[in-house]
């Protein structure tokens, strides 16, 4: 490779480096920190029949003194309210439960798929990878609607089962929590398969030969060699699935029944049906606080892997 001389002077290079570093920070500040601060602010406000439907509204034009007064009006009543109504903690717990079980199911389904892909003939792998990514080309919403078409009482699945004579009454799969599980497992599967495939594909197959050579039959070798070495992929996949699944709204809303309690649904109802922006913002802030724990665990695990 021929060396190209850099036309940028050292001074310019320093300035450029700052710009490159600043872009992601700017992105995070504008698109993550600022919205979060707005939500945080709304969560400590009180409801009002107004536009927007809460007070105090920070008005930066009325001087520092007025700003201070507005600050003093902040209340934590919304957070206290969350602990008083059982709906909220039940929603949180139910969301965590559904996300946890879904993550486990996705791991169960995704691992064999990723393993099969990683062990497939080399020339087949790009095609298989493509097939995993292909669903992303269709809108997520439309894919969930498609599942409605499959699972509803007069849907394709029931028609097929009736036609085959397996059942004589349509199954009530949808709406129910079972349908929510089906929807989540389907929707988040690629996020599990991709990191798993990445670690499994890198696995040196001579390690399995070495295990066999030392007297280890294939199934034991899987648990003693393959699985421990694929743990980074398992951890990454589980968190990539678990974290968004906790806050999932579309799937429980479309496929779930009235008994399916998930925090995303509660939040939506609070925001749009009750028009109680402060309480729904508090719900969102608490959700974030809950999710910070697994996110930090995830980052720790990632750090361990890179060490």
């Amino acid at each position, binding site marked *: 490779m021929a060396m190209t001389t850099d036309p940028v002077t050292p001074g310019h290079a320093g300035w450029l480096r700052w710009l490159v570093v600043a872009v992601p920070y700017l992105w995070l500040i504008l698109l993550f920190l600022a919205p979060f601060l707005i939500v945080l602010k709304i969560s400590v406000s009180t409801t009002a029949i107004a536009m927007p439907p809460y007070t105090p509204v920070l008005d930066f034009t009325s001087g520092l003194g007025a700003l201070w007064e507005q600050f003093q009006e902040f209340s934590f009543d919304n957070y206290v309210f969350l602990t008083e109504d059982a709906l909220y903690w039940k929603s949180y717990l139910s969301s965590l439960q559904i996300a946890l079980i879904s993550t486990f199911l996705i791991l169960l389904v995704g691992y064999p798929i990723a393993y099969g892909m990683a062990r497939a003939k080399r020339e087949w792998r790009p095609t298989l990878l493509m097939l995993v990514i292909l669903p992303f080309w269709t809108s997520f919403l439309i894919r969930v609607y498609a599942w409605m078409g499959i699972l509803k009482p007069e849907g394709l699945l029931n028609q097929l089962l009736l036609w085959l004579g397996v059942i004589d009454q349509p199954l009530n799969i949808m709406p129910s929590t079972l349908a929510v599980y089906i929807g989540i497992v389907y929707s988040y599967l690629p996020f599990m398969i991709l990191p798993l495939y990445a670690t499994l594909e890198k696995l*040196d197959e001579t*390690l399995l*030969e070495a*295990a066999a*050579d030392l*007297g*280890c039959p294939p199934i034991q070798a899987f648990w003693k060699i393959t699985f421990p070495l694929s743990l980074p992929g398992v951890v990454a996949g589980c968190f990539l699935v678990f974290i968004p699944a906790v806050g999932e709204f579309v799937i429980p809303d479309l496929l779930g029944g009235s008994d399916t309690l998930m925090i995303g649904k509660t939040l939506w109802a609070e925001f749009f049906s009750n028009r109680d922006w402060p309480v729904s913002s508090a719900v969102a802030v608490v959700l974030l606080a809950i999710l910070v724990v697994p996110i930090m665990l995830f980052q720790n695990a990632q750090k361990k892997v890179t060490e």
Partner: protein
Amino acid sequence: MAGKSLTAGKSLGPIRRAFAPWNDPTAKPFIQFQNVTKTFGDFTAVDDLSLNIYEREFFALLGPSGCGKTTLMRMIAGFEEPTSGQVRLDGQDLVGVPPYRRPTNMMFQSYALFPHMNVWDNIAFGLKQDGMPKPEIAARVDEMLALVKLEKFAKRKPHQLSGGQRQRVALARSLAKKPKVLLLDEPLGALDKKLREETQFELIDLQVKLGMTFVIVTHDQEEAMTVADRIAVMDHGKIVQIATPAEIYEQPNSRYVADFIGEINLIEGTISAIEGGITTLDCTGTGAKVQVTQDGGAKVGDTAWFAVRPEKVAISLTPPADPNVNAVTGEVWDIAYLGDVSIYHVRLSTGATVKATITNTTRLVERPITWDDKVWLTWSRDGGVVLTR
């Protein structure tokens, strides 16, 4: 294995000198390949091959990449099944026995150490697999660690070790189960030259001391000659020659073997006479008449090649007594000074080049023979061999 020898103490010379079961017609082969063929699609990796390896032998499979030597070894380990033919170990048919039920262990070229286990657990892996009681495992692993001088590294992970240390862990792991046969797949390829040479001698001592059968796969002829009792030189899935290192070197049976092992001069000619144990060859390429003490293996009128090692060719500024037999003349074209020896490339009037090696027995101040000198090259009747293939 840097530092002290693994097997300090008594000389193993007497054991090694007397060892030659392949010459004993009553000896039972330990590993037996019978008409083994292995194909991968259209490619024939091993072609109707038969081979006997004896107990306690250090056997080397030598050849260029793709010659089938690794496939042959993997058939002993059980990673490949022969397409046809039989493989036996100690009288037991191995075909169909999975690798995890074979009494063989392999040291892999890449070492294949388990990266998520420390040194201790790597060595203990096979023993645990056998369900050995814990105290025995601990004793055996400690013994192995002592054998390869890695006691202090038991708790390290493979990535915290140097290449030489990893090689020793791999060796300890493959020896821990006391296999009937230890298979070594290019075991020293990743080590630097000095460490490799030391380790070769330690492998020999270890093999004699432990009394195990070792089979080594290598493409490095020096390595094969250093460690092995016998060498099988392979080409295109067939064995070209099986013999001791000395026989392979001094009595190659073909141009392929002669050329693969060490340096050699090959001179083409026609056999003009075979009389009184002496084969005479008229070499058109050099204008020389070659006489070799060799019987049979060829007919008068055959095309044949005279093969002579450079160190058996003498170089001189004065013509020999009989310049018509076993002598050629030419000009010094190139000199390669290697320190211990110098290799002279002499160009003959016909354009052919003959190499001669001179041992540098004194410090080289000025070369007695130098570039462009007209020189005579001579060799004795038993210096080379006549090859017909």
